[in-house]
């Protein structure tokens, strides 16, 4: 059976999703989702181990060898991304039980889990496949289910947020499929490995350059690179709490993975960076994203929205690392992919706990909350430390590699980059501390109805699991940094 693990990674959730819809019972659907997410995580761990031991795995779907059939191809890069996505899923689903029961109509709960698992399927599919058209198919699977999930939010503005995301997401997907089509016209193949060889043989070519452009814009839209991020703040703010926690830590990360896969594996980094000079586009946008979005985050009154803007800034960090086009920079980018998923996942889960008890995530509503929900707010502080990048947290590890990557480069402009990374870390202190001050130093507003209590354990335990992971991987980062380093070298085509 272990031979079929690559396809099982996708097939199990794909089958479980309709099952959730069919059972028509909230708790049973949740049970199915839980089993699926844990099974997926287990498979991802097995796959990573195999890749580490034996090198890349190639799996021909249905026994049809590439380029005729679809190839699933797993190397260190996507094995690592699989871990991220499935781990977040495995933590968020147990957490979702209580949160979803409160935020979503009972009748819709089975459908919610069906969409949730379908979204997971899509994200995993994008990650495992070695076929560019298959990427598009799974991208649509994950996006469509994500639109539905976001639209399920309590606030009616969730509908417009989902609609906005639908329109922009579809434009992005269309751009991607146009790019893929052009590549297919020029090479006659959709297999990534084939493409990488054929594109290199083809040499400089205007159609390929245009395809490159379409893909850049399409993928940038999906990963919410400034200035194509406008769908993200609303989507994160109005989605149900569990959905925000899941999507914020996985969807954009998988989009970044697509960027890595297309630009480093398919086109090759020499073409992307030397010929097309991708860094000239990505670097300024990343820097603007980091600075301007951190600044915007400071002025938000809704904490969920604040963290959403912070996410756009953090995606800027990831892109910054990638645009350095060096092993250290790429390592920083891949590491932050993993680290930011843990940071934001944890913080959005904290907000879900607040939402569950208080019914609002406005800073005003969180005044004096530390006395009533000490564990929840302590988790917020701990997650905030990680976002700021203090030692012993994963955020620190990301900052370390990012700054190291910038210091390795020559030229005065890299000092600006260093300065900007440090400055925005301090801006994170400001926006995190606004919440901390409200929760710890201000008096609680007068309560109406029953008194606010600590969040239920079923939500606190998954939240704290992720918080502790932030510290575990921040104190012992040898595993993540070695995997990310090897993945970066593999992408750059340097032997590990």
């Amino acid at each position: 059976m272990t031979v079929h693990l690559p396809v099982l990674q996708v097939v199990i959730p794909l089958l479980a999703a309709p099952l959730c819809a069919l059972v028509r019972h909230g708790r049973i659907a949740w049970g199915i989702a839980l089993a699926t997410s844990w099974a997926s995580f287990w498979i991802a761990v097995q796959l990573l181990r195999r890749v580490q031991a034996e090198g890349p795995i190639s799996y021909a779907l249905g026994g049809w060898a590439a380029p005729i059939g679809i190839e699933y191809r797993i190397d260190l890069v996507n094995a690592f991304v699989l871990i991220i996505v499935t781990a977040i899923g495995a933590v968020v689903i147990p957490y979702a039980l209580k949160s979803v029961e409160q935020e979503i109509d009972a009748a819709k709960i089975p459908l919610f889990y069906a969409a949730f698992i379908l979204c997971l399927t899509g994200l995993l599919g994008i990650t495992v496949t070695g076929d560019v058209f298959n990427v598009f198919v799974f991208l649509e699977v994950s996006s469509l289910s994500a639109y539905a999930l976001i639209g399920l939010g309590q606030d009616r503005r969730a509908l417009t947020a989902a609609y906005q995301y639908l329109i922009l997401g579809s434009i992005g997907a269309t751009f991607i499929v146009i790019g893929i089509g052009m590549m297919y016209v020029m090479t006659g193949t959709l297999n990534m490995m084939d493409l990488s060889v054929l594109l290199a043989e083809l040499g400089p070519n205007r159609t390929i350059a245009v395809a490159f452009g379409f893909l850049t814009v399409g993928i940038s839209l999906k990963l919410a690179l400034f200035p194509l991020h406008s769908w993200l703040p609303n989507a994160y703010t109005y989605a149900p709490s569990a959905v925000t926690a899941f999507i914020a830590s996985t969807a954009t990360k998988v989009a970044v993975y697509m960027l890595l896969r297309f630009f480093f594996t398919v086109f090759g980094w020499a073409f992307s960076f030397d010929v097309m000079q991708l860094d000239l586009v990505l670097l300024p946008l990343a820097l603007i994203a980091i600075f301007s979005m951190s600044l915007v985050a400071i002025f938000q009154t809704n904490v969920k929205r604040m963290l959403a803007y912070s996410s756009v800034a953090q995606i800027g960090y990831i892109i910054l690392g990638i645009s350095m086009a060096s092993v250290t920079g790429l390592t920083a980018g891949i590491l932050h992919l993993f680290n930011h998923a843990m940071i934001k996942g944890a913080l959005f889960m904290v907000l879900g706990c607040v939402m569950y008890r208080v019914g609002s995530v406005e800073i005003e509503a969180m005044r004096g909350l530390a006395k009533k929900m000490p564990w929840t707010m302590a988790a917020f502080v701990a997650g905030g430390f990680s976002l700021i990048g203090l030692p012993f947290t994963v955020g620190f590890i990301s900052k370390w590699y990012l700054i190291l990557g910038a210091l390795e480069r020559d030229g005065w402009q890299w000092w600006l980059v260093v300065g900007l990374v440090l400055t925005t870390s301090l801006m994170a202190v400001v926006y995190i501390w606004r919440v901390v001050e409200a929760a710890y130093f201000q008096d609680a507003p007068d309560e109406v109805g029953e008194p606010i209590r600590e969040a239920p354990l079923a939500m606190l335990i998954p939240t704290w699991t992720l918080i502790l992971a932030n510290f575990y991987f921040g104190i012992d980062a040898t595993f993540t940094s070695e995997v990310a380093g090897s993945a970066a070298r593999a992408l750059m085509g340097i032997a590990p």
Partner: protein
Amino acid sequence: MSPEVIAAVAVGLPLVSAFAILALGKWPNVRDAVGIGTAGVLFTLVLRLVGPIKDGLRPEYPILEVLPGVSLGLKVEPLGLLFALVASFLWIVTALYAVGYMRGHHEKNQTRFFAFFAIAISAAMGVAFSANLFTLFAFYEMITLCTFPLVTHHGTPEAKKAGRVYLGILLTTSIGFQLLAIIWTWQLAGTLDFREGGILAGTASNGVLSVLLILFVFGAGKAAVMPFHRWLPAAMVAPTPVSALLHAVAVVKVGVFTILKVSVYVFGLDLLGTLASATWLAWVAATTIILGSLVAFTKDNLKARLAYSTISQLSYIVLGALLANEWGIIGGGMHIAMHAFGKITLFFAAGAVLVAAHEKDISRMGGLGRTMPITFGAFFIGSLSIIGLPPAGGAWSKWFLGMGTLEAGQIGLLVVLMVSSLLSLVYLLEVPVRAFFSAPPEDAHRGEGIHEAPRLMLIAMTVTALATLGLFLNPGPFYELMRLVVN
């Protein structure tokens, strides 16, 4: 226990005791006994490290590897041992004092207070025994964060505002400058270990290393070199034991200790002496010395005056490090100890006045000397040490610092030291002189109500005052440790 294990226990023990303190919150007497007991055990442990260090051992205790090549680890060397000795001894005294103060002043949330206090000590031990820059930085940040709840203990709007300044300046300097300097060092030298003779020599041009030195000096914001000093007066809103141990000893000394350690073990004195920025920074420190003293004059609030005095005195140590010769280092290292004993006495006395007479302002302390002779007597002795007069320990460190300036050929800096001593003579001695010789203010209701502070507080300040005198007669132990640093 082997010396390596002692070092690890010295860092871990206060941390464990913090959790014990939290667990014992319902039984204040047991809780405070645990706190004082831990302090006693900690000091005896640190004391047992002195022998092995003098025998030339440098025990190392690696904890774990965080990133490839970047690890968390402890290593005991003489400079760190000196700092650990001072901090752990004064923790015993402060623990006694704090019990008297917190109860006498009816403070709330005492359990939280004592728990964070213990964590701060643990982090201070971690800084003292850090084997490399990463470990130092990690514990440095830990101190910043765990003292924040102590600074904002009262939870008032004023405390909140002070907390912002505190955190803002300390995090800005440490993340903005120190972290950058550390990563840069890693990029240049390929290691972060503290090594004798330094690790940076020959890795880059003097211009680059000069910039790096500036980043390190201002990055150690806890050293309160101007213009990054505002957090220290702000931190005075904390209860007095915090001001005494943390903002006169542990926290601020962590800052200057970082600069000393970086000077000796990262740059190395030979390299440091060739850097242009070392001279400029020495003058920045000199400016801080003078300006700090001048501002101290203008403060009528006793704790604020002491805070500016601390700013001024800390720069003595920074100056000593930047002189880049062995007398400067010896003087700086000894001043860590001498200033600690002197200044903690002053803060103890200030807290005693607050608890017993409810007075904060110097102008209203007239006549108090007659009812509180022990308190103001201790204040007088502590002042002598800060000024640098015999028969108090501070005379020695000033002496060595003065020799350092001569060795460096910087007569101007020697003049600065002298002028600053004169200034501190005036602004510190004003307090006991007023207390003993002036009449009480007219509106003060001084009758039967005022008497000496609670006994635990008196014991604490007597001990530190006597220790200040003792250090004049026998500065040997600290001097010998510092000799080991420069040899």
